């Protein structure tokens, strides 16, 4: 599980970096642009992987880690964008 956890962290960070390149960073996080989404992605991937290992088979944990990570990155952009509009 340790090796898998490290893989999930790395995948999540990579997807977070891709999201950053894709300009998905919420405006409020622009000051920490290159850290925010990779950290969020890594955390979401790790959480998704562990949840899946508990609820589904181990075999699908990496796939769950991936889609939960991407969904979290998208959700962060949507929610932060919405609260920015509300605050404006």
């Amino acid at each position, binding site marked *: 599980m340790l090796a898998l956890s490290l893989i999930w962290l790395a995948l999540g960070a990579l997807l977070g970096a891709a999201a950053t390149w894709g300009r998905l960073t919420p405006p409020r996080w622009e000051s920490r642009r290159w850290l925010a989404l990779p950290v969020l992605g890594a955390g979401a991937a790790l959480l998704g992987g562990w949840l899946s290992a508990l609820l*589904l088979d*181990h075999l699908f944990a990496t*796939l769950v880690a*991936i889609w939960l990570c*991407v969904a979290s990155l998208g959700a962060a952009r949507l929610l932060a964008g919405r609260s920015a509009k509300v605050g404006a």
Partner: protein
Amino acid sequence: MASERTVVATPQVAGGKRRQGRWRRAGVIALRGALALVLVVSALLSLTPQGRSAVRAALLLPALVTATEPAPLLLAGDPIRHTQSTIPSQDGPVYLDIYAPTSPTPAVPGAREGLLLIPGVGDNRGVAQLVNLAQSLARSGVVAMAMTTDTLMSYELAPPTVDAVVAATLALQRYPGVGRDHVGIIGFSAGGSLGALAAADPRIRDTLAFVLSFGGYYDATSMLRDLGHRALDVDGKLVPWQPDPVPVQTMAITLGQVLSESDRTILASGFNIVNGVELSPADQARLSPAGQAAYHLVTGDEPAQVNANLAALPPEAQTLLASLSPRSVIAQLRAPIYLLHDRSDIYVPFTESRDFAAALTREGHPHKFVEFTIFQHVEVKSGLGIGPLLRDGWSLYQVLLAALAPAA
């Protein structure tokens, strides 16, 4: 006085910057699209039963064609344990090798699939490909149970062995975490035929998920006829066929059940690894007429007398061969049947699976039949080209998809 430099935005510079901006925007859109695709594909593959079957089948396919466990399974699969146990049956003790995941049963779908592996005659418990397959299945979340009996290990086919298969199936259905109607049978060689016979038993007939027969026979009498002719009837033409010594010996030992003790002893004295059975003229003369008929059938040295030799066997032989043939129970089968056979099989004629498939079609029974070119009986040939591997690999993948559906 210092001079001032003024940058003039020429049309070329402005145009270049616009192009750069366009490329950057396109890159951003492509990246976002790629992330969306990754989200959709990974969600579909992990959350839908079809997706999970596809992932399992893709990861297990290498295990079916090599003797090593695929690296992704070793890394991402469940931890497993191997236990052995024995259960009683009409055929005596049934030896079980169980390979199961050690992690708790997943909440989705709530029960594991169980697969009973019947490796055929001989003691195959330590065969690398079988162990590798069982371990790979377990790592993918399936409980794999390999079975054998003393009868099978003695290269003999006997009706009580069918009860042993049923007993093993029931044991697997009761295994902790396995869904009762999530259990299928995968039989290799004669194991496939035994699996089909067991599938007709009322104790498991309505709960069995499927039977997969890889290189099995359909009618023991027609297989004996093929041995006697040393030729196969392929689309109305007789094609020469030289069998391996194993089916020759197995048929000789099996027929020995209905022959005299003397005949059995004489036949056994001629067993060898080159031809299966070979007796001197003096030993042949000591056989009874029934024993001689059996000898000529299994050795194929009287191809023109096959029908006469079949008629010379004792009536008990016809009953025995019928009771060992899936042909006799085809109307009682309920579970889907998957038939796999290689055209160059020298253990069991591929025409047996063709006949089985044709009979299932006539019965309107759900089944799938695939003919391969990459296997020698049930083991992958060496030195294959990429074309045959891809073609047969795709067919095998589709069968795996269907067989692993209960696990999803």
